[in-house]
């Protein structure tokens, strides 16, 4: 029964999009395609929010700053590995730079976890008052501000252009393919490996998982690593296709991703993907209308609309398995 309901929603969305395409022709198809591509990128970042929430019930506001930092890592490393003469292909440097940026982002994610969240968790363990939720939340906001200002100090406030690694005409296609591949890999990780199984167990009940011999602190750290790596890929794709690199870049995409995670049902992995794509498509379709300046308004109206009908988000269900 529950399954058919979510299926119904998806079919409904598909029908809606089909109707729009039929009404608007090529313009709308273009916009939907741009929206799906944009949404896939947003989804990569949204996954980081949703995975951490699934396990810790914590909204990791520092995630958008990990995203920004990874863009800087990618930029600096790609420039560092880059060929000295312009004739050589920069793709090799790009791949190495991206992979190293992912590693660094993973490390940064764990550092944030170990510095800001783990100590609070260990001190409030076993106490069931509201502070176990509120205190880490405020710490997360603090980490976000700290990282943003740190980036300003280290890298300066100048907007830097990301090196043109890919042929400019194919960027959108490549962005989409990479984003989908990353989400596929995550799905495999969560449902096909021992680590994924442990992660799901921790999200259902941390204490019980610990009693079963799962090293929860390691699983939590690995969750931060995974989420941060996805954010790093998202950041680099974002820069390759459309953005420059600057210390406040995280807030723009961070807000969108957070909304995407909530629309999809925070804590639910496919939900974050669906939410991301939905936000992307709605955003791009708005640009076709005369109300293109009201894009954020419309996105938040969608959020409120979804939450009114389904308070747990599109795919989120109270009491079911969450990761």
């Amino acid at each position, binding site marked *: 029964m529950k399954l058919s309901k979510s299926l119904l929603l998806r079919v409904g969305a598909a029908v809606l999009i089909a109707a729009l395409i039929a009404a608007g022709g090529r*313009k709308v198809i273009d916009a939907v395609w741009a929206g799906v591509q944009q949404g896939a990128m947003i989804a990569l970042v949204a996954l980081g929010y949703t995975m951490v929430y699934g396990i810790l019930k914590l909204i990791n506001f520092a995630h958008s700053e990990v995203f920004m930092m990874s863009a800087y890592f990618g930029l600096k490393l790609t420039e560092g590995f880059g060929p000295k003469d312009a004739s050589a292909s920069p793709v090799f440097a790009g791949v190495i730079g991206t992979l190293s940026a992912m590693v660094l982002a993973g490390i940064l994610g764990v550092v944030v976890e170990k510095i800001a969240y783990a100590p609070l968790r260990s001190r409030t363990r076993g106490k069931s008052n509201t502070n176990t939720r509120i205190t880490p939340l405020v710490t997360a906001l603090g980490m976000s501000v700290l990282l943003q200002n740190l980036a300003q100090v280290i890298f300066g*406030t*100048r907007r830097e*252009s990301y090196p043109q690694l890919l042929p400019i005409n194919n960027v959108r296609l490549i962005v989409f393919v990479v984003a989908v591949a990353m989400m596929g890999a995550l799905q495999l990780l969560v449902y096909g490996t021992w680590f994924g199984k442990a992660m799901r167990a921790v999200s259902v009940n941390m204490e019980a998982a610990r009693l079963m011999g799962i090293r929860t602190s390691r699983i939590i750290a690995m969750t931060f690593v995974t989420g941060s790596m996805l954010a790093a890929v998202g950041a680099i794709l974002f820069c390759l296709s*459309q953005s*420059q690199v*600057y210390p406040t870049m995280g807030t723009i995409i961070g807000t969108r991703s957070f909304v995407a995670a909530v629309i999809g049902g925070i804590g639910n992995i496919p939900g974050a993907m669906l939410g991301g794509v939905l936000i992307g498509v709605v955003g*791009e379709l708005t*640009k076709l209308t005369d109300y293109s300046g009201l*894009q954020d308004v419309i996105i938040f109206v969608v959020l409120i609309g979804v939450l009114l009908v389904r308070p747990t988000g599109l795919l989120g269900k109270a009491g079911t398995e969450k990761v």
Partner: protein
Amino acid sequence: MIGRRRWISALAGALAVAASIGCGQSGGASGSASGSGSGAGPAAADSEWRVGVYLGLSGPDAQFGIQTREGIELAVDEVNAAGGVKGKKIKLLVEDDKGNPTEANNKVLQLIDRDKVIAILGEVASSRSKPGGIVANSKKIPMITPSSTNADVTKVGPFVFRVCFIDDVQGLAGARFVVNTLQKKKVAMIYATDDLYSSGLANEFEKELKVLGGEIVIKKGFLKTETNFTTYVNEIKDAKPDIIYAPVYYDVMAPLAKQAKAAGVSGEMFVGGDGWDGMAAEDLGNMEGAYFTNHYAPDVPWANAQAFRKKYTDRFKHDPTGMSAMGFDAAGVLVDAFKRAKQDTPQGVRDAIAETKGFGGATGTISINAERNAEKDVVIVQIKDKQYKFHSVVGDKK
């Protein structure tokens, strides 16, 4: 109880420290014992001209703030090296508003109430000059904005001036250039709806374009935080315009031009405003052949401008932008007013600024009119070989 007592003693200690610092500061600043009486500003017997500067030195358009500060410092250091004005040195108090209008408001208040400045120089972006100007005006401290072109900025009151032209003039010059010089009539427009500068300029351009018989074939507004312009560019391409008018800041223009190029819309399709100034060379590569209206170009053939360029490159080792030149001129006009001021008070300085006539600045001859705006010519700049090149001057005094 102990906790509370400790709190109180800590608070008392902090207050004592703050008070002693405060005393030290005011003592140092006012010099003579006559003290801090007048309230609105420093007493006439002050030993220096305290000038407040608020700019976005970090944040999205930090380049503008940094370039403007360099121009201001160049002008002020020159005056101080020559012994100051009326035997008093000029002291700059620079604050960073982080590109945030609320912060701009706070910084201006701080400069006036805490630092007791006699005049304020500030903000590039109109959306920050306006709140800053409202504060300065209500506190009766004169403020000169170097490069805010939105018409509303100086309308807040008699204490707010500018040394640049306004968007009416810039939009008019842009439209005249497009129709008369480029001979293009079908125009697409893309601008940031939530930005005072961008939407204001778009508005003025459209008005004049219609007068000249041109036509807006498509008009797209976006949020200034937007990064993905694919859909906008596709739509503009479908409308088949002769030219695209994009009155946006450089931080938006760089990704926009890049994505336009990816979609097959080349750089020479674009015409913009003074917000394009100060882009990095690698971004200019996507905009070869584009034109924009500006206050200044590094190679503009005016004697004052070339003298400024030489001084500037000698000191900062890079070419000045329009923003640095405007900063230089704003400080220059203020110093000129200090010299002519009948009384060395904010009111006296204000009256002197209002009487500025024929000041020879790096960006042309500046006269302040009754609306407290500068009457100047508009320079058309072309992007060529990844550099800003002077193209022509569009006169506005017709």
